[in-house]
């Protein structure tokens, strides 16, 4: 039951929202909180039925740890925090990285070890991070230890549990008291939520779907592409993942808003960034904040005296960890390292007050790094990434389009003439989803526009079997 599916849009979401509003009015805030918790459990069980127990145990352990930790001071408090971090890292490692570690060790030691088949609980990367942030915030006394109902509702909140945005307890917990809408503002919140949901659905299904047609072929036929085709396919993937992930995030934010909860912003037109630092301030913003606050800063604090070289080392290390967080593969490690290196150069450039580059050149260089890193990110393995990257740099047969033609691409006139150009314009020139939502007024035209976007996305989804959400892999 993905966000864009008809079962979610026409069944689950209206039932949850109307139920929460009705219960809020009839039974108060507590009733609507129980309702949303129950619906979140159904949502998770529907998508990952075998792992409900994993989520439950994870929540129970972290909740108990936090409740115990806040009763202690100093060393005991620190020990409990360390235990929590260890348990969360261990759980994430077992479920996500066992196979990776075993196959890597087998390759290094020339052993014929086979990785155990451990199925992957959906959203584990996200609900683990959210709980780690909660433990650290409790340790720092930034938030109080939550009650069981509040904590379970916060962690399992269905709009954000599978793929974020990563919301801190301090932001979400007060809002959970208002589940089902604020009195007098319920219709407005539902309307604004529906608008953002519709924008996200359109981005994910229409735009990302159109670009995926080209991107998929590129990565399946790497060595047979011309340089032009390789560039087109890699650019198509960059746009696909942007619309896919930001569209999904818009749907998550929109769903939460319909329930009266404001999730943090996660994207802000990142492909318009003129530096890698700016890119990470606009791309997956909540993850960037996590990296900065919970990875980079603690690493830097370990150094007695901070120098540019030490800051660079901390950046590289934090981004490599963040890369690995995306998935158990060397591709993701390299992806993180590439961005880390880009950030280091960017930091050095700023600190040394090097000459400012023209805007177009900064944009082009940023896009070049982002695009190249996404080739590594998308490829099945490092060998495939190398193949595509080599093809991009091969002058021989540079401008042919034979491979894309031979692939019998599913490219309708609508995709080529409407969806793709509109997607490129939206990514590079148009306002972000949040800007759209801020400017929005409830008029007959906007009502037609929203209904049109939802229906068109649904029909488009039917006529073009859309791709699985790429971030579900993580």
């Amino acid at each position, binding site marked *: 039951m993905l966000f864009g599916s008809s079962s979610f849009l026409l069944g689950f979401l209206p039932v949850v929202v109307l139920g929460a509003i009705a219960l809020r009015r009839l039974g108060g805030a507590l009733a609507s909180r129980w309702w949303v918790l129950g619906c979140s459990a159904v949502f998770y069980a529907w998508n990952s039925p075998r792992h409900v127990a994993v989520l439950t145990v994870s929540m129970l352990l972290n909740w108990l740890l936090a409740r115990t930790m806040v009763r202690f001071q100093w060393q005991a408090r620190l020990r409990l925090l360390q235990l929590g971090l260890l348990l969360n890292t261990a759980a994430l490692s077992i479920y996500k990285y066992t196979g990776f570690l075993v196959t890597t060790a087998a390759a290094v030691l020339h052993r014929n070890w086979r990785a155990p088949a451990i199925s992957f609980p959906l959203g584990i990367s996200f609900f683990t991070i959210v709980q780690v942030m909660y433990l650290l915030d409790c340790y720092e006394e930034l938030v109080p230890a939550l009650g069981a109902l509040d904590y379970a509702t916060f962690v399992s909140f269905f709009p954000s549990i599978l793929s974020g945005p990563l919301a801190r307890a301090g932001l979400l917990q007060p809002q959970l008291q208002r589940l089902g809408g604020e009195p007098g503002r319920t*219709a*407005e919140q539902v309307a604004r939520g529906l608008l953002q949901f519709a924008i996200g659905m359109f981005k994910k299904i229409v735009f990302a779907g159109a670009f995926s047609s080209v991107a998929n072929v590129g990565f399946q036929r790497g060595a*047979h592409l011309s340089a032009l085709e390789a560039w087109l396919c890699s650019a198509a993937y960059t746009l696909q993942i942007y619309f896919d992930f930001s569209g999904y995030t818009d749907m998550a934010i929109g769903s939460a808003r319909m329930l009266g909860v404001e999730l943090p912003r996660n994207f802000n037109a990142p492909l318009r960034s003129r530096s890698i630092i700016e890119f990470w301030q606009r791309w997956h913003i909540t993850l960037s904040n996590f990296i900065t606050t919970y990875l980079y800063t603690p690493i830097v604090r370990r150094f007695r005296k901070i120098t540019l070289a030490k800051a660079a080392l901390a950046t590289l290390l934090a981004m490599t960890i963040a890369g690995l967080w995306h998935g158990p593969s060397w591709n993701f490690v390299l992806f993180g390292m590439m961005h880390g290196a880009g950030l280091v150069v960017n930091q050095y450039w700023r600190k040394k007050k090097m000459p400012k580059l023209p805007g177009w050149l900064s944009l082009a260089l940023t896009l070049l790094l982002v695009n190249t890193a996404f080739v590594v990110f998308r490829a099945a393995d490092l060998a495939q990434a190398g193949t595509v990257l080599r093809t991009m740099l091969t002058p021989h047969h540079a401008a042919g389009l034979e491979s894309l033609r031979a692939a019998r691409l599913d490219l309708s006139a609508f995709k080529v003439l409407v969806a793709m150009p509109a997607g490129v314009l939206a990514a590079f020139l148009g306002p972000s989803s949040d800007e759209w939502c801020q400017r929005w007024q409830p*008029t007959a035209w906007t009502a*037609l526009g929203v209904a049109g976007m939802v*229906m068109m996305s649904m029909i488009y989804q039917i006529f073009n079997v859309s791709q699985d959400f790429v971030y579900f892999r993580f």
Partner: protein
Amino acid sequence: MSYKRWLGMVAMVMVAITALLAAAMLQSIGYVRTERFRANATDPYLLTEERAFHLRHQECDVLIYGDSTALTGVAPQVVQQRTGLTSCNISVPVSTLLVLGTLPVDAYLQQNRKPRILVLQLGPETLYLSHRWETQAADYPIALLLRDQPTVRALQQLALHPAQAVLFFWPVTRYRLLPDRGKVATFRQTFGPALQRADQQGGLLTLPSPAQTACDTVPRALASQPDLAWLDEMRQRYAAQGIMVVVRASPVPACDPDLVRFQSELAGHVDMNVLPLPITYFNDRNRHMTAEGARVETEQLTDLLSSHLPGRVNTPPAGQ
């Protein structure tokens, strides 16, 4: 405009569009079940996929079932000529095979004598494809369900796969409202004789297309591994009914870029692995056979059958 009125208007527009689509779908169901739907169809696979449901009291020793590579590649007359075994070809388009499985075989078994051998012949790439409705062009299976299965079962499947239902009914509705008579006339002229011959030839369909001269140069986009579990399940099911199941991966052109991959990955899982044939034996998509290609391909199959049924195979006529 108030927020409540705005929400009401959004809901009204969405309900109106949905109702329009639903009405179009419902009125199309009756049309699909008429002979007019068949008469106006311009797809040879749509017109041949129902064969298994219409055969009565046949006594085929060898039943050939598979995707379009079997439909265009296995000649029942050649099987009989070379083995003395009567045979019928009830193959269907690949999407029907993938989502409906052996429904046509079971329909055949209900109305005809049980065959001794069931040959399941599939294009090698078929073994890499998903069996989910969501990944198939569902026109063929939906048409088959609506025309040849009880209404309740057909509607049940449509309800389970609403996206595919819309995808099917939308063009059907459009075509019913705006029929392209010129296209139908051209189709009948081009494909009519081939379809008639298919009935006379025990189900072998030879498309009226010229022989191909070149292969695709790049490998197909396929899953990383073939899905072979369902073959074992099918073998067991029909073996329990006393029917021997022989699985064959269809031949491909010798110049096919995937040939080596298919041969290595399917080895040991099929009774007859992919064999290379000259490209001139193919006349469509590097997979569908000319009449000559079908003869050669069927001869290869009879060699396999002779190894399964020793002493039951005729000596090939002199000169062949």
